[in-house]
């Protein structure tokens, strides 16, 4: 028992020694991240089977994160009118997907495909170790758009054949 405690103490010592930034500097989330975490916008789900909904489901296996981002598209104009997200992961991942849902609203689909993870990361002041969270959000947007387009192709194909 004592040996284990001593071992833990030694490990605590050495890990403190090996992380030079731990003394004095506290690592904290940027206020934008905290804002999105405390007041997340657009949390929720749309009906996956609704033809005007595109669902993007992506994951980061390295840290076990999973992110679902859904867009509601106006069929006539091709504009995204609403968005929802559900993310299981760290604060940065949740904030990134929250930001993504805010940014896609009111934009055309082609436009949102140009949203870069670096912009999201900059907005949230994400540290380098959390950059992949913003990448996940970018991938989620692209996946949602892709899903919507594929659904449209399928329904259009069915529609045309039934009309003919």
């Amino acid at each position: 028992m004592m040996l284990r405690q001593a071992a833990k103490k030694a490990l605590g010592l050495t890990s403190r020694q090996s992380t030079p930034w731990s003394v004095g500097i506290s690592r904290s989330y940027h206020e934008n991240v905290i804002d999105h975490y405390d007041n997340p916008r657009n949390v929720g789900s749309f009906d996956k089977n609704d033809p005007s909904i595109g669902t993007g489901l992506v994951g980061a296996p390295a840290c076990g994160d999973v992110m679902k981002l859904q867009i509601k598209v106006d069929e006539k104009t091709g504009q995204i009118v609403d968005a929802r997200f559900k993310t299981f992961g760290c604060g940065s991942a949740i904030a990134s997907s929250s930001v993504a849902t805010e940014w896609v609203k009111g934009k055309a689909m082609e436009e949102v495909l140009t949203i870069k993870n670096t912009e999201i990361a900059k907005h949230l002041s994400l540290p380098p170790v959390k950059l992949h969270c913003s990448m996940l959000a970018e991938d989620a947007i692209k996946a949602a758009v892709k899903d919507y387009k594929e659904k449209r192709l399928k329904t259009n194909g069915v529609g045309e054949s039934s009309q003919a």
Partner: protein
Amino acid sequence: MNRARKLVASISTLSTRRRTYSPSSTFRTISINSQTHHSSRRESFQPSSSSAKPLWLRFSGREFSSGSSDTTSSSVCWNCGFLSEKAAFLFCESCRSIQPIDDSVDYFQIFDLEKKYELDAGSLEGKYKDWQKKLHPDLVHNKSQKERDYAADQSAKVTEAYRTLTKRLSRAMYIMKLNGKNVNEEETITDPTLLMEIMELRETIAEANDSKELDQIRSQVQEKLKQWSDSFVEAFESQRFDEAVKCIQRMTYYERACEEIVKKL
């Protein structure tokens, strides 16, 4: 240099070595004559080693093969010059001094295990404690600063090795790393079946409120972990590394889910 000398010595004493197996000499000082050095090495090992098998038993039959994996490096003790052929030379049995870190020593070597995924986790704890009894920084207060630094490094490495090998997932990732397959890449996955399953699992955990329900979910997830751990072994041993990576990914997701459950409990 040492190794070349040893090799030459081995070849030259090929016929005579077996006869000099049990000499009467028990001196431990550095001997320039490699023949007597080898025999004295074996002799000195016997009284001091208590838990480990005597070196001569371990290496009998393998003395003449320079290509065997365990004798890749022969290390010399910085304090007394004792020549060790142990794969993981962390501690000199002859003068009881702690050795500096050797980066080529991997975690399996530290615990004297084969480099494979399946291992006897029960013996691991015992070996870990044995190591800490020799290496722990608390035991070297009256030694030089250099040795105290070695103790801190070695003790931390052994602890890290123990933690990595005890848990299935970290062991899997480590063994993949040893084989040059880096698992921890930041690439997004889009496998709908897996992701939907994990989504549902995490949602269930988030909605579950009593500990009984959470325990139930946890045992289900542990089941899955075991299942995928077995799949990993199979894939890894058949060299299907892409599949092995997928197994590890799944295991990571299940481990995260378990952590969430523990947080809630």
